[in-house]
């Protein structure tokens, strides 16, 4: 005996109890409120297949409580419902079917336009299966990869038999969800499954994985298994699906009242859990298993008032089954907050029975979603009940809930059919039947039967049309999807420890851990503009490109003219993709006749490497690409005193003739061999010192020491943001859209269309014939929010219509006014030059750079 907390009350549980069985014993009958109409839902399937018993357990929403064992001190509450699930005023939506018909989001709240904004907020609050705790940090899950000959999904009788067979010829991993699958056969001792399990577990090459949920069968036979602390990716040569069957969902008016229950749920309560599921019961028996369930109920002392039984099983009905209605069927169930009576019907005649429990053993439906995800030709076999067929049965033609996850009734299906959605697959999409947490376990068969019975063309096929099964087969938590992300290693430059010692605020950027600020970023900014400052740019992509074909390679890759670049000179290069869109940018330096040095953005290094190697290979060029990103560090020395600083340390001359702009020179700084590249990104005199990674700390210390009397301080990414913004330089990715051509970026000078060929040229030719629909602009703001940075991301409007967006914004220190970058669309064939921002500020289009337009300062 133990206890857990349920909505402020203490609930005791017995050994072996699930949360659902303990709550049922405690007298809870309303387990949840339905998604759309807030109808009461009671315990229904008892096997983890339906959505009814979903509750929030220890802060995790949408947990199927019939699959969770009780634990001391657990906190359980029902989600949905206002003020609570027991007294839910939102149940009024059940009377509003007319404004929320099937597919209502396509039909209602369309006009006037503002209505949706209001309605969306209301609907969001009303609907849903609970709220994620916004502050709780997710448990970290690790990722494991397993290669195995055979994966058996499901450790029931069929699965264990298949495991034994497969173990003879190779390694086997057999996984099972746990609880739900094994709580079925009550009373049979010794339990044949337990016996077989013990036998199989002792076999060589067999691994049993409990409480592992298969999420899907992916291409190349890849099956992810979700477990409590890990996500296991299994790569088998062969998959055996032995997931068993669910009990058939009954569709009739009142079928979702609390008190209506599938046979397995009722038998599990009455048998192993020792809870009487009701006082007076009506039972429907159409399966062998149902006969056993009926016996279990009678043994537990449930008064069975009537049993509707299929003719073949009449002889098997035990004593005490009440009035026998052979060949009978449920006509409807009635009740208020729970079941009060059931009408059984036979040959058109109905008879009412007062009762508080209706137990349905209607048949078995294969739990074959995983099997149906496999592609043709893949080695996936289905065994046991999962291999059962789905026969067509005429649906009752009456109303009733088909889909309990999304509140879709038979009436809704009829209406959708009348609206022209005349096929199981599009009925599914339109009504969302089978798309809820149960993934069609309950409603899939009913939907298929409905579609098959309506489809008059040409002859009804012998098998019901099943809708496509897709992963995930079971509800999956976000922390499962995020499994392994904490294992990603941040790359660090060789200067990382110096940054930490200097008290820098480090954060992730482009796969690296980088300093954003060392304290006051505005002070860092001033150091660059007024004196001299250092920045760790060792994260830049750095490539040596050499060989007889190297010149051809860079000429064919980059859209600008390359052949006139002399050794010792550097050029800004854009990289385009085949579609002519800007992907990355960087600096290309010519080192010698057949040798080049390329720097790319920090985040773009991996793709640049792939792109260079691809092109060299496709063109058959004799060119070699050496990725020096990890071997070389780089320090940007920037500011009006940058040259003076280097003169104190360099053995070589660094005047404008020796290291011209734009150009580079190989020289020795404080004894460290450096490639000094003149750069213009921050708009001041700047030298990027590329050096062997190991010697980075030594070089950094020497530079910092030499600049001490100028109050030298390093700058981080925060200062860089404004420094480059004042120069109007875009960050590819932040300021650009995925389909920005050089023309849209205002950089036509970065392209030489007279070149014979470069990547993206044919696309630019075609797009050049079209009018420009969008372009990047510099912006100045007035009347904006106090913090200019808050403007970033705001829409830009002309006469109330959104025509653009602000991609960067900050208050310029040197100009003392708010500036930004953004993109705007053409309006009536021209580009507007005055716009409103989303928060009501005025934005004027201005030319860039904002600062030092003729570039005199960076040329030094």
């Amino acid at each position: 005996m133990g206890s857990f907390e349920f909505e402020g009350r203490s609930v005791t549980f017995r050994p072996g109890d699930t949360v659902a069985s303990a709550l049922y014993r405690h007298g809870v009958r309303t387990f949840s409120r339905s998604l759309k109409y807030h109808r009461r839902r009671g315990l229904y399937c008892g096997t983890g297949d339906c959505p009814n018993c979903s509750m929030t357990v220890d802060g995790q929403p949408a947990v199927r409580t019939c699959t969770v064992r009780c634990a001391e001190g657990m906190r359980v509450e029902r989600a949905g419902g206002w003020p609570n699930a027991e007294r839910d005023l939102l149940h009024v939506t059940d009377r509003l079917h007319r404004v929320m018909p099937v597919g209502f989001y396509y039909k209602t709240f369309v006009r006037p336009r503002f209505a949706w904004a209001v309605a969306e907020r209301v609907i969001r609050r009303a609907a849903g299966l609970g709220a994620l705790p916004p502050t709780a940090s997710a448990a970290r899950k690790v990722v494991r990869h397993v290669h195995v000959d055979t994966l058996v999904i499901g450790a029931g009788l069929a699965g264990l038999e298949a495991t034994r067979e497969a173990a003879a010829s190779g390694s086997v991993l057999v996984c099972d969800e746990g609880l739900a699958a094994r709580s079925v056969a009550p009373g049979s001792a010794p339990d044949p499954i337990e016996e077989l399990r013990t036998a199989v577990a002792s076999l060589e090459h067999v691994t049993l994985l409990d409480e592992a949920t298969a999420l899907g069968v992916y291409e190349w036979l890849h099956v992810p298994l979700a477990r409590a602390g890990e996500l296991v990716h299994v790569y088998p040569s062969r998959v055996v699906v032995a997931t068993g069957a669910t009990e058939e969902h009954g569709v009739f008016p009142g079928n979702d009242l609390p008190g209506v229950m599938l046979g397995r749920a009722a038998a599990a309560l009455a048998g192993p859990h020792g809870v009487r599921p009701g006082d007076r019961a009506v039972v429907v028996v159409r399966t062998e298993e149902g006969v056993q369930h009926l016996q279990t109920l009678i043994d537990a002392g449930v008064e069975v008032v009537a049993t509707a039984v299929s003719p073949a099983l009449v002889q098997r009905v035990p004593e005490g089954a009440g009035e026998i209605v052979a060949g009978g069927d449920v006509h409807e169930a009635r009740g208020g907050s729970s079941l009060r009576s059931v009408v059984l019907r036979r040959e058109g005649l109905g008879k009412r029975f007062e009762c508080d429990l209706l137990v349905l053993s209607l048949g078995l439906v294969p739990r074959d979603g995983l099997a149906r995800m496999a592609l043709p030709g893949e080695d996936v076999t289905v065994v046991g009940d999962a291999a059962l067929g789905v026969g067509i049965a005429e649906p009752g033609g009456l109303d009733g809930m088909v889909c309990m996850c999304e509140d879709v009734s038979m009436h809704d299906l009829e209406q959708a059919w009348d609206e022209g959605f005349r096929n199981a697959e599009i009925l599914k999409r339109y009504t969302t039947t089978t798309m809820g947490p149960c993934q069609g376990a309950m409603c899939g068969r009913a939907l298929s039967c409905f579609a098959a019975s309506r489809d008059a063309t040409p002859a009804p096929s012998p098998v019901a049309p099943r809708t496509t099964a897709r992963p995930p087969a079971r509800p999956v938590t976000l922390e499962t999807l995020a499994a392994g992300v904490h294992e990603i290693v941040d790359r660090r430059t060789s200067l990382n420890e110096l940054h930490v010692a200097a008290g820098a605020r480090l954060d992730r950027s482009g796969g690296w851990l980088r300093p954003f600020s060392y304290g006051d970023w505005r002070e860092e900014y001033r150091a660059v503009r007024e004196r001299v400052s250092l920045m760790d740019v060792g994260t830049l992509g750095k490539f040596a490109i050499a060989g007889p074909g190297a010149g051809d390679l860079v000429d064919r890759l980059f859209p600008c003219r390359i052949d006139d670049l002399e050794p010792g000179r550097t050029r800004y290069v854009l990289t385009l993709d085949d579609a002519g869109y800007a992907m990355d940018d960087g600096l290309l330096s010519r080192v010698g006749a057949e040798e080049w040095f390329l720097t790319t953005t920090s985040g773009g290094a991996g793709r640049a490497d792939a792109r260079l190697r691809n092109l060299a290979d496709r063109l058959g060029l004799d060119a070699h690409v050496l990725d020096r990103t990890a071997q070389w560090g780089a320090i940007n020395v920037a500011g009006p005193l940058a040259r003076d600083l280097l003169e104190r340390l360099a053995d070589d001359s660094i005047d404008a003739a020796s290291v011209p702009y734009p150009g580079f020179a190989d020289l020795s700084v404080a004894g460290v061999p450096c490639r000094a590249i003149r750069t213009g990104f921050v708009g001041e005199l700047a030298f990027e010192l590329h050096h062997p990674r190991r010697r980075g700390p030594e070089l950094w210390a020497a530079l910092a020491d030499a600049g001490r009397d100028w109050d030298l301080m390093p700058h981080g990414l925060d200062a860089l943001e404004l420094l480059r913004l004042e120069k109007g330089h875009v960050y590819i990715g932040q300021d650009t859209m995925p389909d920005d051509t050089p023309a849209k970026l205002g950089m036509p000078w970065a392209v030489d269309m007279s070149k014979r060929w470069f990547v993206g040229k044919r696309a630019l030719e075609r797009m050049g014939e079209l009018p420009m629909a969008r372009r990047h602009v510099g912006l100045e703001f007035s009347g904006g929010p106090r913090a200019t940075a808050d403007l970033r991301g705001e829409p830009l409007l002309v006469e109330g219509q959104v025509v653009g967006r602000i991609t960067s914004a900050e208050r310029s220190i040197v100009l003392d006014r708010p500036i930004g970058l953004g993109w705007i669309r053409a309006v009536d064939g021209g580009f507007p030059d005055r716009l409103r921002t989303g928060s009501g500020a005025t934005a004027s289009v201005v030319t860039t750079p904002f600062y030092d337009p003729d570039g005199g300062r960076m040329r030094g």
Partner: protein
Amino acid sequence: MALSIPCDLCGHRPFTEFAFGGEWRELDASDTEEEFAREYLPDNPEGPQRERWFHAMGCRTWTTVTRDTRTNEIG
């Protein structure tokens, strides 16, 4: 069993080590129209396709293989 790609340097490796590089396309052609067609109008065959794979998590070389898009068999 995962699809395995024959890398020129490393031999057969699981496809998860590779990045897909799309259909093989000739770059040069006699006129710009043909060049345009080669670049932008892929054949997208249902059957054997010559395609590029980049051994991103390995030796970082590119390779060209023929894969049947229906069966994933590598010819």
